[in-house]
């Protein structure tokens, strides 16, 4: 019974914190105030102030965690919506995204291995370019840490949005296909949201790249990791 009340309190407070963050973001649109960042920071501050252990928080948090799987399944819907565009631009989008998946896995793996980090960290950094629920699932099956994987996903997402003007200039990305594939492959949902704000076409390509990237990375990451580690 006690667990039930704790769980319910956690779920209700998480909904309230999330709702508050979304409302704030609508008024103050900045990448640092994105709902996921704001909600996470507020929740951590609350846990620290009231000295609530993470395990206690997770009595309710695990119920929200359970819904991550169906949320990923739901990503099939936007992919289906943009199927006509996907058909037309299949080869460039698929090839670009596949190369992005390979580059992301190998560069993350080699750089962190070089710097001498543990396998737990390496396995958590490998799936960083895909959307959080998928990255966490990959990290979980390959011996990484799910929360750590989520943090690297945030670094790839926010980092990508911050540096994309320089990357675009350096690689001369000026076509919406190149830009969309780059944003979706490297910075998943956070990059896609940024693309969507600028241009519908670029945003749709980014959505496709983000979903394809999730599929590619989850298929090739385990094999490449075993091979290269």
């Amino acid at each position, binding site marked *: 019974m006690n667990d039930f009340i704790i769980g319910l309190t956690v779920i209700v407070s998480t*909904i309230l914190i999330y709702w508050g963050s979304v409302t704030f973001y609508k008024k103050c649109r900045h990448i640092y105030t*994105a709902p*996921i960042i704001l909600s996470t920071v507020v929740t*951590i501050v609350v846990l620290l102030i009231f000295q609530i252990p993470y395990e206690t928080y997770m009595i309710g*948090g695990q119920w*929200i*965690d359970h*819904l991550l*799987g*169906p*949320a*990923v*399944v*739901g990503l*099939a819907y*936007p992919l*289906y919506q943009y199927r006509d565009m996907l058909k037309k631009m299949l*080869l*460039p989008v698929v*090839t*670009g*995204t596949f*190369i992005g998946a390979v*580059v*992301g896995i190998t*560069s*993350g793996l080699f*750089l962190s291995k070089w*710097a001498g980090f543990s396998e737990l960290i390496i396995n958590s*950094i490998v799936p*960083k*370019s895909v959307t*959080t629920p*998928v990255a966490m*699932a990959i990290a979980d099956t*390959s011996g990484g*840490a799910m*929360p*750590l994987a*989520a*943090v690297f996903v945030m*670094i*790839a997402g926010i*980092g*990508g949005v911050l*540096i994309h003007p*320089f*990357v675009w200039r350096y*690689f001369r*990305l*000026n076509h919406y*296909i*190149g830009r969309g*594939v*780059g*944003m979706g492959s*490297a910075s998943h949902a956070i990059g896609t949201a940024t693309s969507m704000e600028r241009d519908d076409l670029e945003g749709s390509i980014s959505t496709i*790249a983000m979903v394809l990237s999730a*599929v590619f990375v*989850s298929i090739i990451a385990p094999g490449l990791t075993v091979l290269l580690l």
Partner: protein
Amino acid sequence: MNKAVTIIVQLIGLYFLYWVGTAIQKVLHLFIPGSVIGLVLLFALLSLKLVSEQWVQKGAGFMITHLPFFFIPATVGIISYAYIFKGKGILLIGIGMFSTALVMGLSGAVAQKMTRRMERFYE
């Protein structure tokens, strides 16, 4: 209220596909997460018209709009891993950013080059 019921029913459907995906993963000993198998499964069902777009529209739309909500507990978990970013760990942020720049630049450049070639071909 009607809309809420529709969303909940469709969420149960998505949950069922997730469950099927996880079952496939376990039976075939795959490394691909069950959720991604479920995604591919749903895309196939939609493409084959075995599942109507309207059956998933509201549920999937709701989940995607509020996607950040579902991973709050996971990102809050950083509380247990904050120590990793102390000292040398700060390097990991640089590694993450550099690797992200490479992914963005190379994937975009390849896609753009191929598109340009195709456009020239069709002209």
